[in-house]
Structures are given as structure tokens and as C-alpha cells.
């Protein structure tokens, strides 16, 4: 199932139970998967047209009236375009608004550089009070949605909207602010979020063939980051690799290294090397950005060699 369909199905459940759950779009309801909710919940859905900043502040106003708004757009428009509204109307004002950005990083594919957010985590991470969550697959998203609903505050949900490889098994329990150990290892800690998690698990197989036992931790909540888990794993293995579909500046790499700043542990980054995106399909973009399974394995070896 596509992630946007899972997201919309989860929303429908919440909207059914709680009439204060409202959904706002900026002419991307179809892209976000929420279009179907408009007929089913006419009094809980509002298309604001192509005016994301207005949408963000309206959501803050609705929140002050006891509503629980979810606003959606593509990641660049849900973050850098509404940066001031996210900061002031939403987070500074302590509003319970969930901001959903779809098509993160290279997953914007054919929309190209203008729609390809390499900086959205950095933008949102620097806003005090903003929680950042990036799901890996539909199992994790489904488990997270009710938990996020009960969290009274602002959350940025960085949502890959198409189908993903399945990483988590049914029965998975989601804990907000707690990173997930996907695989234990002793030689290197690999911290990963979002769509590159499956590629990382593939890379781990390549590493195992060469006798390197990698630990893989999915940092689904990039802010606040699970310091305890990051620190314990890095201290145990003595080498770190971060893997992200985002600029290596301001995203997961930065978040992990902020935790490890006092530690003498070598760290290497797989991610977008401070450049804009361009048009192309995901395999092409992974190749030119150095985000392939082989790139991840090679980077892990570099980190291990630095020990």
C-alpha cells in the first residue's frame, strides 16, 4: 500500500473518533492521499488553495479553538516556505498542529530541484519545540499515527508517499522519542531514517560478507533525538555512519554528531553533499548523490578504518 493511502486511512480513523481532528491542504490533497477524506468528512476538511502560509496560521487558529489540525503539502512548501509560520503561529504559540511534508529529498523525482527538499529537517530542527518524525514503512507509520495524535504539540512528519520496502513486522510497537534497534552489531553503528533504511539493511549484508558486523538503528524521531540509544551504541562499536535522504548539513548527521560531540568516535556521512536536487527517477538520483547500497557499505568501511 502507498504510504499516503496508509496516512489517509489512519487519519480517517482518527477523524471518525474525534470530530476535532481536521485536515487542511494547499491544493495537494490528491498528492497527499487526503482527497477522499473531503467527501467523507466535509466538516473536517478544508482546502486552502495554493497559500501554504495562510494554511499554517489558520491551523494555529483552529488549534486555539480546540481543534487538532493536520496540514499537508510537499516537503519544501511544508517547511521552508512556511518557516516563519511554523515557528511563530505554531511552535512559539504552543499549538497542536501536525505538519506533513510529502516527497522528501530525492523522492520528489520528476518534480526536480525546486520541489526536492534537501534542507527541510535542518529548517524544522532549528525551530524550538518542533518534533520531527520520519517513518520508514507503512507498519511504522500505522503504529505511529495514534501515538502522534495523542502528543499535544507540533510535529513535522516527513512522509515518503509512495510504496516502500517493508522493514518492520506486524506487531511492531512504536515508541515516540525512542530509536529502534533493527540489527545488533559490534563493529559500527549505522543511524538511518526514512527511505534509505531498507538500502542500509542491504548494505549490512555486504559488510557481513567482509566480516564487519554493523549495528543498525532507525532514528524515526530525529528531534528530539534519542541521545541515550545513540550514545550507547556509538560507545559500544566505536565507529559511526549516518545515512539520510537529506543534506548532510542540518539533518540526521548533524543531530547524531551533536550527541557525540564530546566523544572521540569517527563518523562518516552518507547523504546529500550540500547540493540541490535535479530531475530523475530514484535509482538515478541515488546514483548521482551517492546514496546506493554500495555507497553505504563503502562509507561504513571508511568509518571502521578510522577507528
Amino acid at each position, binding site marked *: 500500500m502507498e504510504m499516503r493511502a496508509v496516512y489517509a486511512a489512519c487519519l480517517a480513523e482518527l477523524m471518525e473518533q474525534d470530530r476535532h481532528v*481536521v485536515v487542511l491542504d494547499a491544493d495537494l490533497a490528491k498528492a497527499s492521499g487526503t482527497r477522499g477524506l473531503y467527501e467523507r468528512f466535509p*466538516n473536517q476538511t*478544508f482546502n*486552502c*488553495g495554493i*497559500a501554504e*502560509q*495562510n494554511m*499554517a*496560521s*489558520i*491551523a*494555529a*487558529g*483552529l*488549534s*486555539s*479553538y*480546540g*481543534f487538532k489540525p493536520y496540514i499537508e503539502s510537499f516537503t519544501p512548501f511544508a517547511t521552508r516556505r512556511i518557516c*516563519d*509560520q511554523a515557528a*511563530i*503561529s505554531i511552535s*512559539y*504559540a*504552543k499549538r497542536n498542529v501536525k505538519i506533513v511534508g510529502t516527497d522528501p529529498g530525492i523522492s520528489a523525482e520528476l518534480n526536480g530541484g525546486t520541489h526536492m527538499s534537501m534542507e527541510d529537517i535542518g529548517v524544522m530542527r532549528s525551530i524550538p519545540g518542533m518534533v520531527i518524525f520520519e517513518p520508514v514503512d507503512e507498519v511504522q507509520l500505522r503504529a505511529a499515527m495514534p501515538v502522534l495524535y495523542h502528543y499535544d504539540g507540533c510535529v513535522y512528519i516527513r512522509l515518503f508517499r509512495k510504496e516502500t520496502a517493508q522493514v518492520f513486522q506486524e506487531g511492531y510497537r512504536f515508541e515516540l522519542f525512542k530509536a529502534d534497534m533493527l540489527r545488533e552489531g559490534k563493529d559500527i553503528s549505522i543511524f538511518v531514517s526514512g527511505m534509505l533504511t531498507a538500502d542500509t539493511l542491504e548494505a549490512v549484508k555486504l559488510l557481513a560478507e567482509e566480516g564487519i558486523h554493523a549495528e543498525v538503528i532507525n532514528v524515526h524521531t530525529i528531534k528530539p533525538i534519542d541521545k541515550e540509544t545513540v550514545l550507547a551504541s556509538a560507545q559500544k562499536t566505536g565507529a559511526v555512519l549516518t545515512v539520510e535522504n537529506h543534506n548532510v548539513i542540518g539533518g540526521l548527521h548533524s543531530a547524531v554528531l551533536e550527541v557525540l560531540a564530546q566523544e572521540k568516535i569517527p563518523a562518516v556521512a552518507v547523504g546529500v553533499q550540500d547540493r540541490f536536487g535535479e530531475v530523475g527517477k530514484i535509482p538515478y538520483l541515488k546514483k548521482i548523490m551517492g546514496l546506493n547500497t554500495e555507497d553505504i557499505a563503502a562509507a561504513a568501511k571508511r568509518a571502521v578504518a578510522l577507528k
Partner: protein
Amino acid sequence: MNQDLKEVCKDIRCDVMTCIGHLGVGHIGGCLSLVELLAVLYFQEMNIDPKQPRMAGRDRLVCSKGHAGPAVYAALANRGYFDRAELLTLNQGGTNLPSHCDMNRTVGIDMTTGSLGQGFSCAVGVALGSKLENDGATVYSIIGDGESQEGQIWEAAMFAAAKKLDNLVGITDYNKLQIDDTVENVNGIMPLSDKWRAFGWNVIEVEDGNDTAQVSDALKQAKRFAGSGKPSMIILHTVKGCGVSFIEEKGSANHNMNISEEDVKRAIAEIRGE
């Protein structure tokens, strides 16, 4: 009633001077231009209860020109939301009365504002919330004339009309001045009434926005527009720094100005007509 409101205006105006004067600097001009409006809203028009500041279904005020916080605080204190003595903590470290309105700090403030343009969109969200709850509340939102240069104001204007939010009453503090110069010299907004009409709003123009009777009539008329299917905009022609001649004379320099204790005394004497 009018006579009473005039006394209320004097009290609010003096409190604005006293609290900003205590600090020695502040947004005096745009606070003084709003005094009559705030007096009529808080002492006559709004369905509110200072003893139940979070009362369900109450009327709301979103002061989108958040820098007029001190005037709103003075009105709230005089209306009994909190002790007038607290006004002297304005803008001091740890205060509940920061320069710009903050719903999480100040009793009676309905929305956090300060980044211009945003509060008006928030007010639209509040008005939508009230419609969904069907609680009959009227939502008032004050914007500045300079603030009307923000694109977000017009995004909000379009949405409010499209969604028929006739429980929303916008009020433009049209004092014609902004920080750098006159509004027309900086980036003209005329013809303002035509713009709002073209965006699908009822427009009520008030010739003297510093006359309580005229302000009161306009607010009553706006309330009669509930049911019209259109939001209403009251354009208040006001004077920046109104009520204190030496402040008025400063023109756009009174936006955020220094003030001495002695000048505060002079201002209060003029306001009180002594």
C-alpha cells in the same frame, strides 16, 4: 455610555503612557491610535467575562499587529482581567506582558501575534473554529495599515470570503504611518476599501476612528452583517499617537520611541485635560 467610554479611553491611554514610560521606550504611536477601538470592544461590544477568560463561546480578539500589546494589556487590566499594577512589568525580564501579544503568558489574550500578517490568518482559523462549533462567537482581528503590505493578509482575506466567515470582523488601524515613512510613500495600499470589497468583504469606513461613537456604530453594523455570508472589514481612519499632541507631531517617528518620565507626566496631563 459614551461619556463613560471617554473616561475609559483616558484611563487606558494613561496606562499605556505609564507602562511604556516606566520602561522608557516602546510602540507608543500604534498603541494610542487603537485606544477608542479597544475601549468599545472590551467595555461594550464583546461577549466576554474577565472572571472566565477562557469561557467557551466568548468573542475573541486577535491583535494581529502584535506590537500594540501594551494597549491591549491596558484595556484588559482596566476591564479587570488582571491587576493594573502588573502593567508596570511590561517588557521586563520574566514578565507576563511581553512587547507582542502572547496567549500563553497573558490572561485574556486569545492568540500569539507579532510576526505581521500571521495573526490575521490565525483569526480566520479561530472564526472557522467558531463556525464549526456553531457557538455564535464573533471574532475580531486588528491589523495595521503597514501590515496590509504582507501577502499573507490577502491570502487570509481570500479564504475568509471563500468560506463565508461572516462571524469575522477585521479592523484596519489606518493611521497612514509606518516605521520608515508614510504608508503611501513606502508601498501604497490605496484604494484600501476597494481592495477589501474586491476580495468579497463588507466594508465599513469610519471617518474618525478615534471617536468612540463612530467606532461603536461601525462595530454594531459589522455585527448586523453576521448572516450576510461575508466577512466584514472596518477601516478606521485613526491618528498615530492620538491623544498626546507632542507624540502625534512626531509622525512616523512615534512608532517605537523613547520617552522620559517628564514627558509621561506631560502626556498624562494632556490626556486628563489638566
